[in-house]
């Protein structure tokens, strides 16, 4: 009952204040717009593209694709090669744009199949892939379309993106947590509204958790907004016509989310403890600034020191960055991710306990 009322109050405070909601969600939008515009400026199609495409089998629909390309100011040259594998290699090496393979008697029979082989890391090839699938889909559903990238996502751009994204995420998570927690804990202490709650018969542990739980949920929103903003715009920024959100399997996303979910309450409770200790928002901001630098250093270390090893599961924040990187690189470090999340959550519980003790400490709450 009492705990619920505390949680509700935090949510009420947040969701009825447009200013707070905006400060929480705006970063994601700004990042998205900024990076997209930047990416657009850096990677605008300077001249018309030329596609060299190998055909295996034949069909009248090639004309539809060619028309679509011409309409966009591009040109297609259809080529043939005796050996299918050789054609694929040409695509891998960047000497050709793509290979399109039609099933036998494609135009004559119903239920034919068309396969597109392309290179996702090559901008021209990826553009052709989008164009061709769009044209084929518009043509009608008499046949099935299958597409396959001949290269994996491990291009330079992707690698940079994968290694830097966790660092960005942790930074965004931190600032999201900071903006709400400082205000709600240090602010309430400084203004004397926390003391008003402490003279009631509510348990200190409920007050501590009644702050940390809703603040973590709210910070989660901010972190998610920043995360989506980054994830959706980064590929564009790096000139990759690749959709981040479709690049990995379910378990990769699940574990990434789990890591974020575990690091948010940890950071919130860390800032909450520091805020409860401080006499003013200003003092708390100073301490939190130091924490942010520390977490940034950990993230940077994790980002730029390769192959850190499994011991990193024991270090909060570091563990999150290290294994998020591996997950984004396509690996599936299952137990490491689970243990990391566990470590973060256990530390969170410890910090909730510390905060409870602090709320009961008269020198901290009512000292001069």
């Amino acid at each position, binding site marked *: 009952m009492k705990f619920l009322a505390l949680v509700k109050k935090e949510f009420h405070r947040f969701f009825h204040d447009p200013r707070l909601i905006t400060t929480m969600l705006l970063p994601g939008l700004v990042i998205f717009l900024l990076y997209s515009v930047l990416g657009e400026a850096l990677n605008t199609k300077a001249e018309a593209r030329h596609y060299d495409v190998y055909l295996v089998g034949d069909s009248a629909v090639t004309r539809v694709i060619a028309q679509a390309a011409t309409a966009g100011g591009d040109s297609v040259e259809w080529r043939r090669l005796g050996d299918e594998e050789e054609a694929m290699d040409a695509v891998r090496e960047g000497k050709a744009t793509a290979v399109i393979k039609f099933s036998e008697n494609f135009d004559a029979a119903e239920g034919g199949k068309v396969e597109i082989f392309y290179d996702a890391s090559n901008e021209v090839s990826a553009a052709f892939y989008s164009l061709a699938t769009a044209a084929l889909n518009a043509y009608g559903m008499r046949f099935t379309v299958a597409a396959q990238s001949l290269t994996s996502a491990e291009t330079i751009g992707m690698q940079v993106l994968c290694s830097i994204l966790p660092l960005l995420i942790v930074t965004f998570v931190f600032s999201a947590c900071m903006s709400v927690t400082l205000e709600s804990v240090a602010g309430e202490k400084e203004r004397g509204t926390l003391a*008003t709650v402490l003279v009631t018969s509510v348990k200190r542990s409920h007050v501590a958790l009644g702050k940390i739980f809703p603040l973590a949920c709210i910070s989660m929103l901010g972190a998610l907004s920043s995360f989506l903003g980054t994830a959706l715009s980064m590929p564009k920024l790096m000139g990759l016509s690749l959709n981040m959100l479709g690049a990995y399997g379910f378990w990769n996303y699940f574990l990434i989310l789990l890591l974020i979910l575990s690091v948010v309450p940890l950071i919130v409770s860390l800032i909450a403890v520091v805020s409860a200790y401080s006499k003013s928002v200003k003092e708390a901001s100073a301490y939190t600034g130091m924490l942010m630098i520390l977490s940034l250093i950990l993230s940077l270390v994790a980002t730029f020191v390769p192959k850190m090893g499994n011991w990193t599961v024991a270090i909060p924040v570091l563990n999150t960055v290290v294994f998020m990187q591996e997950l984004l690189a396509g690996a599936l470090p299952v137990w490491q991710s689970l243990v990391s999340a566990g470590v973060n959550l256990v530390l969170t519980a410890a910090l909730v306990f510390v905060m409870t003790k602090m709320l009961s400490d008269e020198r901290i709450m009512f000292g001069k």
Partner: protein
Amino acid sequence: MQEHEEIVRAENLKKTFTLSKKQQRIEQTGEKRRVAVSGLSFSAYRGEIYGLLGPNGAGKTTTLRMLSTLIRPDAGDAFLCGHSIVKEPRRVRDVIGFMTSDLKLEGFFTPDYLFDFFGAMHGVEKAALATRKKELFSRFGIDKFSEVRVKNLSTGMLQKVSLVVSIVHDPEIVIFDEPTNGLDVITAKVVTDFLEELRRMGKSIILSTHIFSLVEKLCDRVGILLNGRLAAEGSLEAVAKGDLERTFFALYEGEGGRV
């Protein structure tokens, strides 16, 4: 209800603070420890207003904070409605309403919301809470402002809301540190009227003040607090001996104080 039923009993309360370096500098003192309350005992009775009268630094706030369980005495104990402040602080918090200018309400919320929130903090049942809100809001004229955010209320109305919110759980005892300190005359009147109203409702009140007229106007019993100790205690007439102010300064000088 029993005549002169003892509702608060303080027994030999002691509190010593360790002074921080900063505090030592501000107060220009070399001492590391400060005895704020030293062996304070007194009793207050049901339905009465008890006043702790003393100069700045006498230990009034420290005493009231101990009674309201915000800080723990180093020694001694006090019993409010029979509950020990040392052993059952949460029980005590449910039978008292503590008011001081240090306790603030969040300006973002409305009186209506805050009343419900603090009701929940004290575990007041929903139905009882609604009835009580209606009654108190209309009695103190808050009903028209119940949906106005606290930060937009006038000082007087804000004071009323703070008072009403602190008695949301219908406490037997109200503890009030310097009730009229820093208030303009109109708001001060709101507060003293409120205290008299509470007494009419049968509540017991303990207040602290350094203002003689406030004691003379409100209190049934008074304790004169000097250097963390009671210098005199009893009914207002018995302590004042005709002139409260003169009696006070006689005691003050007797304790070695200089005007």
